[in-house]
């Protein structure tokens, strides 16, 4: 009985029996894996594999055939060489906090967890470089260099648990990327295990390495071009002064007008965050950040030389008042700032306090489209009978609408998904993007065709073909359809399933 269609290395469909997935990693392959990682680096029991069936996006689940936990670049290479020879697809995984299903296992594939490669290898303060293994936690980098007055700038909300390898895959952002840029801004070089198991060094410790900017294209490729095993990061000197202003507005439109005023005044704040009333309520319920109960809350952070920050903060206050801000507070000490940020950073999880289920959406619009898109989101939500809480990185137009629903009410989950997708369409119509920092992954690959024309996607996939012609590294993600990489005549290579007699070409 033929029940599934697989896609082989050469792009030809294969038919396989359902039992194929059990057989594909047969004893000798497992034996090889075990020889590479040792017993403790190989997970095959069903109960343990379940831990890896999804990442931070829990509505897609696939149990992998095996999970490997290498401790060195050589082990990663060994594993990938076996995968390449046997045409077993693999998915690299960091901390599994991704929100687009980027680390979702693929059917009949293995997961390579980089969690045990978690050493900070080198700290070079005079040159502001830190070299890490991919399993190092984002916040640990700052932790290591903070005593010397440095920090690592990308700060996704999950920074206390997410890994640098995962950040590299997703080109993670965070609240402060308005001023400091994204992961790609701070990754200077990478050691990468390519999908055939070979090793390549992209970029380096110095700037403008000769040749193509391969770190530029590798960062944010969502694990589809290979596995980073070392990452050279740039660290940043901690500013002399940081001040965070909290301003309460009657509506998000008023708060949005203040953002426009700040930008028009020629300022580049370190962060500008906005929350609507529902998001404020959720944050209050969860972490008691002592936010004013208002229609639109603005959080503006300025950093730099003290005299500069003080002069600019006065201007920000004035702009906020002109735009109708009621309460305005400026947090100046580290402790005060921590409280202000606590509510914002906890906002996603906090929504769980006011709704049993919710979807975290991630879209981008040109900042000026904010009032229009907000009112449209409100209208669509009311029409569908679904509440939407809104948290924005307002400075760069990155929206995080939280679509609230109750799975127990029939049809509501579906309606919420429809609404969440509709919001992305609004972003595209406004000239924006379907993702600002969470990635495309599994979740949004079908939306890619709405954002880009077919030739655009085909062109991107040429890069994939250059790195991974056999589509082994996190296949089936990012793009709606794989591109066949050069139907070049070559030696015929049977799929392992074919060899095993459980699949045939048709």
């Amino acid at each position, binding site marked *: 009985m033929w029940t599934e269609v697989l896609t082989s290395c050469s792009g030809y469909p294969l038919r396989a029996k359902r039992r194929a997935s059990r057989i594909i990693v047969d004893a000798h392959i497992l034996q090889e894996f075990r020889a590479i990682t040792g017993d403790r680096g190989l997970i095959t029991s069903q109960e343990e594999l379940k831990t890896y069936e999804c990442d931070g996006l829990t509505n897609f689940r696939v149990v992998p055939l095996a999970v490997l936990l290498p401790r060195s670049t050589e082990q990663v290479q060994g594993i990938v060489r076996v995968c390449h020879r046997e045409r077993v697809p693999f998915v690299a995984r960091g901390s599994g906090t991704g929100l687009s299903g980027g680390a979702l296992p693929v059917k009949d594939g293995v997961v390579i967890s980089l969690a045990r490669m978690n050493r900070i290898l080198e700290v070079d303060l005079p040159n502001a470089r830190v070299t890490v293994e991919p399993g190092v936690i984002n916040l640990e980098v700052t932790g290591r260099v903070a005593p010397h007055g440095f920090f690592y700038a990308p700060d996704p909300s999950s920074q206390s648990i997410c890994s640098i390898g995962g950040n590299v895959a997703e080109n993670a952002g965070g609240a402060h990327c308005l001023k400091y840029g994204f992961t790609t801004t701070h990754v200077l070089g990478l050691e990468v295990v390519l999908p055939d198991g070979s090793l390549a060094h992209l970029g380096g410790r110095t700037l403008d390495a000769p040749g193509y900017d391969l770190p530029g294209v590798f960062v944010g490729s969502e694990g589809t071009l290979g596995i980073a095993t070392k990452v050279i990061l740039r660290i940043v000197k901690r500013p002399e002064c940081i001040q965070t202003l909290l301003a309460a507005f009657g509506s998000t439109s008023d708060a949005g007008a203040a953002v426009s005023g700040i930008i028009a005044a020629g300022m580049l704040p370190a962060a500008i965050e906005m929350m609507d009333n529902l998001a404020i309520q959720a944050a209050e319920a969860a972490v008691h950040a002592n936010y004013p109960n208002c229609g639109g809350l603005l959080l503006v952070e300025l950093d730099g030389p003290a005299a500069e920050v003080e002069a600019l903060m006065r201007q920000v206050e004035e702009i906020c008042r002109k735009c109708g801000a009621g309460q305005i507070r400026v947090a100046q000490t580290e402790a005060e700032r921590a409280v202000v940020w606590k509510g914002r950073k906890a906002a996603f999880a906090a929504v769980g306090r006011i709704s049993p289920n919710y979807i975290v959406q991630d879209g981008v619009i040109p900042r000026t489209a904010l009032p229009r898109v907000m009112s449209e989101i409100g209208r669509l939500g009311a029409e569908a009978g679904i509440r939407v809480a809104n948290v924005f990185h307002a400075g760069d137009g990155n929206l995080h609408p939280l679509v609230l629903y109750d799975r127990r009410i029939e049809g509501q989950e579906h309606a919420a998904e429809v609404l969440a997708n509709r919001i992305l369409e609004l972003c595209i119509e406004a000239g924006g993007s379907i993702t600002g920092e969470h990635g495309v992954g599994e979740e949004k690959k079908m939306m890619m065709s709405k954002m880009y024309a077919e*030739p655009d996607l085909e062109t991107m996939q040429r890069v994939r073909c250059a790195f991974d012609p056999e589509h082994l590294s996190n296949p089936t993600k990012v793009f709606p359809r794989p591109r066949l990489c050069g139907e070049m005549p070559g030696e015929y290579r049977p799929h392992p399933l074919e060899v095993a007699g459980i699949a045939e070409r048709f």
Partner: protein
Amino acid sequence: MAAPLSASGAGTGIADPWDDLRAIAGGEHLRAAGPVDGVAGVQPQMVFEPSSETELAAALRYGNAAGLGVVPRGGGTKSCWGNPPVRADLILSTVRLNRVIEHAWADLTVSVEAGCTIQNLQNMLAEHGQRIAVDPLWPERSTVGGILSTNDSGSLRIRYGALRDLIIGITIALPDGTLASSGGKVVKNVAGYDLPKLATGALGTLGVITRANFRLHPMPHNIRSFTFAACDLGDANRVMLAVQDSSLTPAGLQVRLTAGAVPAVDVRFEGTVAGLAAQEMVLRKIVAPAAETVTSDAVWQAREGLWSSAEAAAIAKFSVLPASVTETCGRIGHLADSLGVQWRAVVQGTGLGWLRLEASRAAAIHEVLHTLRPELERVGGSLAVLHRPAAMPAIDAWGSAGDAFPLMLSVKQQFDPRGTLNPGRFIGGI
């Protein structure tokens, strides 16, 4: 290193490619190339100036099918950069694709055609008090597509990053005629692969850039520059590192070096009056005992100065770690002096430097470059030769891409399998 791409091409049995191209081009903007159109010493046959990106794509597709070597060109200010092309038949000039398509000033973004000069673009942006925060060479002539393809950055980089950090979207024409866009018009966007970065610095070997979108920055309200005469090279590097290790936020930090003279360190700040005053005080404490000298804003064009009357000089760009600037420049000085070569350099705080070498004996210049490159590569740096005097023995322009080279070759083969675009000019014969 793998073998360079195929060097076969024009003159391989094509009757008269230009007649067919005239049909695409309409004749008016297709003309015979003259001596001024030479590309690193190679004389192309024709120049085409398309009026639209679809026309450009059609011509490129034609050239690709006909086996021509196609050289994209903006302002032509850096036509000597890179290795001489192994074929150069057709120049595709973006000179007529020069519109600023949309300046969304309230969103701090701009969409611009590749042939727009940097100065024209900056003038338009300035109407709304904004700028693209780059200061490339010869802005009045260099174009958007040209500075992207050569990844040219100047002194603003230390504060605002390189072009890779400012570009947010791109459209390129591929040799098969595909016009592909990626990225977009918003600053934050992680949908799909980052082709804007891939095209930046690719020297037009993957596709012809037809338009680009950038994030913008507000013009600074106040600017102040300072120049200090350092005691010696070590003192200059000490100042540069101390500034970067302080709470200061310089929007320019460089050292200018001339054989036999004391190094001059330039620092620039942007911001509020109060902020500038405070930063100046901190700066003076840091730089002491280096003495302040008369400062002019012209110091930030020092890179251009290296190129003046450069026919008999070699000009190279090098990249080292910020803390290695002293050591590198000391070594350059020692090498150059020992071989009787005059040298001047401008080195940014980021570790990127531009070096001019001049000598009556061109072979001596060659020897400096040839000796220096492997030394820099051994410590993770690089050296690209941007310009060489005609009399100098040939030298590869780029140096080594290490174990990433096979991957670069694969990328090239995916985008330009026939080796149509700028054949042989880029790294490793790409």
